[in-house]
């Protein structure tokens, strides 16, 4: 391993020495257009370069040892930015994350060390909001379940599939009224839904009814949509009590983080008919999904795809490069994140 590390450092030094472009530490896989766009502007030290065999932290340490080491890094949700990460690369002054969430970054530690953090801003917000509405319609109106019914030939053989439940007029309680939550609200209003919400503080700019805690929100809602960030305050924010308050006709949709919901209690609530159904794009231990859910027809499941469109992929590329260029030219980041601005 020591020899590998020396070879890697030499390779990186060669990479870094080429031209006058600033070095960027790239710690996530990117597609060809993204890679090309980065290489046009920066000297890219790429964890995922073909033939690059060092594990992540060793690669980071090797990158930190080259002449003119990288001052900025591009990461995704799989990279934990904590004290030991920052110790391994003391040259880093800027972390640009392409993930929607921030739960993988110790923002307080970054602030202590004067490391700026930029997130993906509103790049994903529209796609996630669109998807949340699609998930909700799917659960209430049984779109995917009806699909399976038709595909296995049951329509001809067994007759009509049961009807779903009307969306219009339902009271929808949104947990987190930030970029995503507010877009969900706007879409659901056009369906005739009544919007309720919880967030850290009431928002003066909206006329929706505010609830100071999620339990009360659930008690007065027919649908709960989780659209908040994951942090200490919001872990298991949807728990057994909240599910009971939502009630046997209630539906939960989660496009936040799996850990926003107590998954074990959710499975129990569904099994026992304490709530009517759920639409889930995220889970506590992805890619593991509680097997019991597979046998339930009143649940819609997907594999963390709410952000995955061609459009947001190319928007992300432009946005990430925008943040990097702002940093290197001494301008304010496009979408800086501060330690106290969590969970909108």
């Amino acid at each position: 391993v020591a020899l590998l590390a020396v070879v890697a450092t030499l390779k990186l030094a060669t990479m870094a020495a080429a031209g006058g472009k600033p070095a960027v530490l790239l710690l996530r896989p990117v597609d060809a257009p993204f890679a090309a766009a980065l290489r046009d502007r920066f000297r890219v030290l790429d964890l995922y370069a073909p033939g690059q065999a060092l594990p992540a932290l060793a690669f980071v340490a090797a990158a930190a040892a080259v002449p003119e080491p990288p001052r900025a890094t591009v990461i995704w949700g799989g990279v934990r930015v904590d004290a030991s990460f920052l110790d391994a690369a003391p040259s880093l002054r800027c972390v640009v994350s392409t993930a929607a969430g921030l739960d993988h970054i110790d923002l307080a530690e970054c602030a202590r060390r004067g490391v700026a953090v930029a997130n993906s801003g509103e790049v994903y917000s529209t796609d996630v909001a669109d998807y949340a509405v699609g998930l909700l319609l799917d659960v209430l109106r049984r779109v995917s379940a009806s699909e399976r019914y038709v595909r296995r030939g049951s329509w001809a053989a067994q007759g009509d599939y049961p009807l779903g439940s009307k969306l219009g007029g339902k009271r929808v309680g949104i947990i987190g009224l930030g970029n995503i939550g507010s877009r969900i609200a706007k879409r659901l209003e056009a369906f005739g839904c009544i919007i309720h919400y919880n967030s850290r503080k009431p928002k003066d700019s909206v006329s929706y009814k505010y609830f100071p805690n999620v339990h009360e929100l659930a008690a007065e809602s027919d649908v709960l949509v989780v659209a908040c960030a994951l942090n200490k305050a919001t872990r298991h924010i949807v728990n057994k009590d909240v599910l009971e308050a939502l009630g046997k006709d209630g539906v939960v949709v989660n496009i936040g983080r799996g850990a926003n919901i107590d998954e074990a209690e959710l499975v129990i609530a569904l099994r026992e008919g304490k709530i009517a159904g759920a639409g889930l794009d995220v889970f506590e231990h992805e890619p593991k999904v509680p097997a019991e859910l597979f046998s339930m027809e009143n649940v819609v499941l997907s594999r963390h795809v709410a952000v995955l469109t061609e459009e947001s992929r190319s928007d992300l590329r432009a946005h990430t490069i925008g943040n990097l260029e702002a940093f290197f030219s001494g301008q304010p980041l496009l979408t800086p994140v501060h330690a106290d601005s969590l969970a909108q």
Partner: protein
Amino acid sequence: MEDTTPSADERPLVLLGQPLFPEFAAALAGRFRFVLVADADAATLAQGRALLIGLNPVTDDHLAALPALGLVAGISVGVNHVDLAACRRRGIAVTNAGAAFAVDTADYGVGLVVAVLRRLAAAEAHVRAGRWAADGDYPLTTKVSGKRVGIVGLGNIGSRIARRLAAFGCAVSYNSRSPKPSAPYEFVPAVRDLAAGSDVLVLSCALTEETRHVVNGEVMEALGKDGVLVNVGRGGLVDEPELVRCLQEGVIGGAGLDVFESEPDVPPELFSMDNVVLSAHRAVATPESIRGTIELVAANLDAFFAGKPLLSPVEL
């Protein structure tokens, strides 16, 4: 049904084309005297002024047997199973379910648009098959917001679909028999041109002689290889064998289909396609809307017997 003498029973006589759905029977039996045409004696048939129908066809022969008939009251939105020309000739009014199901159908239509573009059902099948851990990256789908949506038929259903998709930031244009000046969307006189200028083509119009196979091969070629067709109208609006061919050959990019030409038969070629969302004609209703329809049917019958304007007459 009660067997009371006509003079003792104040309830208006309403003939039935077929037995009532249980929810209708339960709600309406106290307000009207229902007699099944098949069970009625000659005197009753000669007296019957109103006929409440279901989804079975109503032909000129059926109408000829009811000389006093002034109203055919339907419980569905689509009335293409009724010989409307014969009703017009005979001076018989027809009512349908009006806007009672419009919201549900519009909601479902939008649900199908999102499900097709974002491949919801395919993503579901993927997870349920246990393939998340095994498979690598999942393919990217395409953004819903901002898509150009062309709606064929801007009536009760189409206008609600338009409002919902406009809230997603979609650009909406439409085709209908005539432009609607109050609609804030662009009117396009030919369906082929509407398809050419749209990413998503949504069908929400009635099935008539003019609209049969309105979506044919030419329209689908105009919609194009990234275009998506969503049908919550009637199967007959689309040339179904052509649709299958266009999907197989990638002439269009995908489809969301709630209706088919010969339900419940679905072209089996569609079962192997993951860019198609199939549904068992569920767009139309929810229990909540059925309750609303019962009220509307009763209100139409009441209005008819009182000589007042009908609430949801169909233009003949």
